[in-house]
């Protein structure tokens, strides 16, 4: 599998899926005469034609260097990526409940431990400084609304 072939197949799959989705778009009597399907049809055509052309170009190429996502060779990087994503999603879920300062503190500890692993004190300090400084700057100086969560009325400002 080469890079171009992978990209071409991806475009083809997404293009076809989008085309199927386009047929499922309801068309109402109201609205403009062109309708909500015309533009998506064009878009799916661009994706399918470009994907197919890229595949054809790749299959005809004299040199076809192999492409790998590096899931095993760069296992550490991929695991870190997935962990950052998971932490980000959990951060979003608990932010309102825990409040910005606490949720951000734990989120930053998690992210720092993933990227700056082994330096616990440094990470602790960085997480604390980041959550306090950004809370002060955005909530108190720039007057943006940030959730206080379980800290609620405890905060003196």
């Amino acid at each position: 599998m080469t890079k171009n072939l992978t990209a071409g197949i991806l475009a083809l799959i997404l293009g076809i899926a989008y085309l199927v989705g386009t047929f499922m778009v309801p068309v109402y009597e109201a609205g403009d005469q062109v309708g909500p399907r015309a533009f998506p049809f064009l878009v799916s055509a661009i994706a399918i034609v470009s994907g197919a052309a890229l595949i054809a170009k790749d299959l005809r190429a004299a040199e076809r260097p192999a492409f790998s996502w590096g899931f095993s060779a760069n296992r550490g990087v991929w695991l870190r990526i997935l962990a950052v994503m998971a932490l980000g999603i959990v951060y979003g879920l608990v932010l309102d409940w825990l409040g910005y300062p606490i949720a951000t503190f734990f989120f930053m500890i998690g992210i720092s431990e993933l990227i700056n692993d082994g330096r616990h004190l440094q990470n602790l300090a960085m997480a604390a400084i980041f959550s306090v400084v950004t809370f002060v700057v955005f909530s108190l100086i720039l007057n943006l609304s940030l959730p206080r969560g379980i800290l609620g009325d405890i905060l003196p400002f």
Partner: protein
Amino acid sequence: MESILHNLGLGFEVALQPINIMWIVIGGLLGTIIGMLPGLGPATGVAVLIPLTYGMNPATALITMAAVYYGAMFGGSRASIMINTPGDASAIVSCFDGYPMAKSGRAGSALATSAIASFIGGIVGMAFLVFFTAPVADLALKFGPAEKFSLMLFALTATITLSEGSVLKGFIAMAFGFMLATIGIDGQSGAIRFTMGIESLQDGIDFLVIMIGFYAIAEVFKNLSSLDVRYDVDSKSIGRVWMSGEDFKRSLMPMLRGGPLGFFVGVLPGAGGTIATFLSYAIEKSVSKRPKEFGKGAIEGLAGPESANNACSCGALVPLLTLGIPGSGTSAVMLGALMMLGVRPGPVLFEMHPEIAWGVIASMLAGNIILLFINLPLAVPLVQLLKTPQRIMLPLIVGMAYMGTYFLNYSSFDFVLVSISALAGYMLSKLEIPIPPLVLALILGGMTEQSFRNALTIANGSPAIFVTQPISLGFLVLAAISLVYALKRHRKLMQMI
């Protein structure tokens, strides 16, 4: 002429307000720092620093983002000169002669040349910006749906053909961008499209969420494989950060040539600093009396591209401010942030909010002067930041990115979207599918479809309207020319260098 001076006066009234001066300094300094860090360019800088602009009025927000933008342009070459690692793609050319100058003990001169050339490029670019924006905005007011559609088609095609990489992959990226743009309720018919039953998608996807994923978090993912890279910066060998008389004499013409060149390249959608700097380098080498010195520390090879690079960032603001079409990834992020503040850049901006449009233009003069004063005396301490370990910088960028996402809509669903888009951005970059066409299609998708449908409705369904309107036809011809040009570009440019 009189109206330009009047508008510029209004702009200076806004730009020189103490609060705006303060944000120019902060934005410029932060932009310089982010632009300087290897792998992080101006788009990342603006994306990460978006939260700073949330509480601001639109004029101050745009002035701050512009300061971050050209601050990053000033800073981008620091890493090129000192460690032969460009801060972003447009600073690659600065490695060619900047690094050899530093290696031969002329680091101070190279840093000064870079700062002064960036300053001159910025001033030249700003002067052109003053004279070009109003006429282009006036012309754009006359565009109907057919012209708007063809203009956007040209902008997208130019972005694909002028961006680096394969044209086919550019079209694939554009299709992906349109796919994302069509998710949600169709404004013209009320039909719900491509939401897959997810209620949170009915209002469509906030493209700033996608851009923060692509330009901030995905950039962090790319750097995860080089966490332990350490850059050895010997600040003692930099010497005095200043240009000698001879250096200035040799650099002046390249700087003056680079400015207009960079500006006009910047105006083209998608062309950006990389093309401007390579072209400037090629021109300087071809007109030089000492072409053999190029690549070995020729000051002209640093001065011209540095000037072109900064002027390019001014040029990129022309389509953004006058047409509402971002000319680069960075201006796309700026457009998104402005729309969130309720301002839609475009021709109407100059009529409805002249203080914003002219305020940002005037702020660029003040900003370039401030940045020159930041970059000359602070060159040595700023360069020390290159020693900051990636392990410290990257978590901070991730933190800022997620925080910025939260401020957009206060929605936990956006955290899912930003995480997925970061992964998608990383995977697309692995496949060498260019991001700018995707981002531009995502931003312009709604408008492109609306213009397309309105034009066809006016013409009773006949697509001939796109070729019978002269301006529309002109844009379509330009789109075709840019496609033909793309086929020959890379080979020619490489030969020139």
